[in-house]
């Protein structure tokens, strides 16, 4: 129970704490964690912002930069790498939709259809979180080999005519999106499972008693009540997918699958062009925060955490 029940989320006990709740002990509880987040998150983001405006040291070596306020870095970075930036969000969006389409039936099967059969539920849940227990990189490489040109899957698809002559799966946008959808699927299933698990079955019975068809019941009762899970799940998939570069570099090619994470990595480590890498990181972060804020406001669930 311990580990899996954490996923379902126990019902919180609501208590109105007195305004002057005991001492000011919270300061001692908060300060170490906040200090850490300040020094290791806020300050580094500041360092990233500063670095995005650096200019090369005149006559210096490759990778030597000095502080400046060179806003032109952003214009240069975006005019050069906007296709990769747009592609990242596009791939992440497709992968998120795919995760929702594959993940919702999984969550529904576990939470609603297997309700009351604890053993079955736990077995399925363990299988859903199983990917967490094997290395993310090893699994992506497994996909690379499953989708490789000489693999059984591709040979079978060629034989069946599902792939055109000389067609391939690896090194295509399809492979990258599949990899993204695969890797982040559990993050979609678990929040939806959690919100469906809290669904009161009597509501569905009431719907059926009032002559709603199963489809209507689903559309008018189940789906709206599982929305918090859907919203949480889409965010948990979209955010890491947009910044991911492992799938793109292991399953993609260098031309029409390059994502922004790959560019940031290459600018930092291969080209030693820190300001461009930093500027792209800042833009990625800002864009994601804007998208998340807009989405959460639209979905109307601001108390996600």
């Amino acid at each position, binding site marked *: 129970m311990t*580990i899996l029940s954490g996923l379902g989320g126990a019902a919180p006990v609501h208590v109105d704490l007195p305004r002057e709740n005991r001492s000011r002990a919270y300061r001692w509880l908060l300060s170490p964690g906040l200090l850490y987040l300040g020094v290791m998150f806020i300050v580094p983001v500041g*360092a990233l912002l500063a670095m995005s405006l650096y200019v090369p040291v005149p006559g210096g070596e490759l990778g030597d930069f000095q502080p400046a306020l060179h806003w032109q870095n952003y214009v240069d970075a975006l005019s050069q790498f906007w296709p990769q930036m747009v592609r990242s969000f596009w791939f992440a969006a497709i992968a998120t939709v795919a995760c929702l389409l594959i993940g919702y039936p999984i969550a529904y099967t576990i939470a609603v259809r297997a309700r009351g059969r604890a053993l079955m539920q736990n077995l399925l849940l363990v299988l859903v979180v199983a990917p967490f227990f094997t290395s993310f990189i090893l699994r992506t490489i497994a996909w690379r080999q499953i989708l490789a040109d000489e693999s059984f899957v591709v040979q079978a698809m060629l034989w069946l005519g599902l792939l055109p002559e000389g067609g391939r799966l690896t090194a295509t946008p399809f492979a990258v999106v599949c990899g993204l959808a695969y890797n982040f699927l559990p993050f979609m299933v678990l929040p939806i499972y959690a919100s469906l698990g809290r669904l009161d079955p009597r509501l569905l019975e009431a719907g059926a008693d009032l002559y709603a068809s199963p489809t209507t019941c689903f559309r008018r009762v189940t789906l709206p009540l599982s929305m918090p899970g859907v919203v949480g799940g889409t965010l948990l998939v979209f955010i890491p997918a947009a910044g991911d570069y492992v799938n793109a570099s292991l399953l993609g090619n260098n031309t029409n699958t390059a994502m922004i994470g790959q560019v940031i990595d290459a600018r930092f480590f291969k080209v030693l062009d820190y300001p461009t890498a930093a500027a792209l990181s800042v833009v990625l972060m800002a864009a994601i925060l804007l998208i998340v804020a807009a989405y959460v406001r639209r979905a109307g669930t601001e108390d996600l955490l």
Partner: protein
Amino acid sequence: MRLRLGRAVVPIMGVLGVLYLLVPIAYTVAFSFNDAGKTNLVWRGFTLDNWRNPCGAPQVCEAFVNSLRVGVLATVLSTLLGTLLALALVRYRFRGRPLVNLLIFLPMSTPEVVLGAALLAQFLSLRVQLGFWTVVAAHVLFCISFVVVTVKARVASLDPALEEAAADLYATPLETFWRVTFPLLLPGIAAAALLAFSLSFDDFIVTNFNSGSFTTFPKFVYVSATRGIPPQANVIGSFMFVLALAIVVGSQVVTAARSKRRVGR
């Protein structure tokens, strides 16, 4: 009949989805038994050699041990800091609470590349040598938020009447914490620690930005992907999978047995 068929569609899709999740794991486990030689790309025959000699390939075990060291340290530190934050957030009302919540939410909603890049920018500016400690520091950062969320759920489901009862029985606040609050929170803390360890152990992107020449297991696998991954990496991956599965199933069995005993009484 039509209705029955319709009812079967969703569970079939669900089970197919679960199978989709398991395909690459099965592949990874199967190829740990491959008589592969240097590159583990095609099936060449069954062997137990890789399992008998998991450290056979150069650097595999070194990278694995590095990941364990980082994982243990990052887990201990992030669980400690995160649990304290969770306690403060659920049990105390104070000004600036929304701000603290935001500060905890932000690292989770920042993509790993950006977290890695920000930390690297800081380490480069301060001319910190990249290596073991920078990796630990980075891992603690992204684990904290997940610990807070996990422990918070547990604290929120805790009945404060129990603590009040302890106080009524003249327990000091510290005694109350150690004898009442902490034991009740322990399952939540354990789940958070397990989550933190698995996040740290499996992390690649943030590690890649902040490790310099220090190599963890995921980094080793990624780097050797171009040359071909030794089957020993599959052995270690499969071993960790079986171990984690055993921990989860074991804890399930223990809890089930305990609750049965409680009902029996």
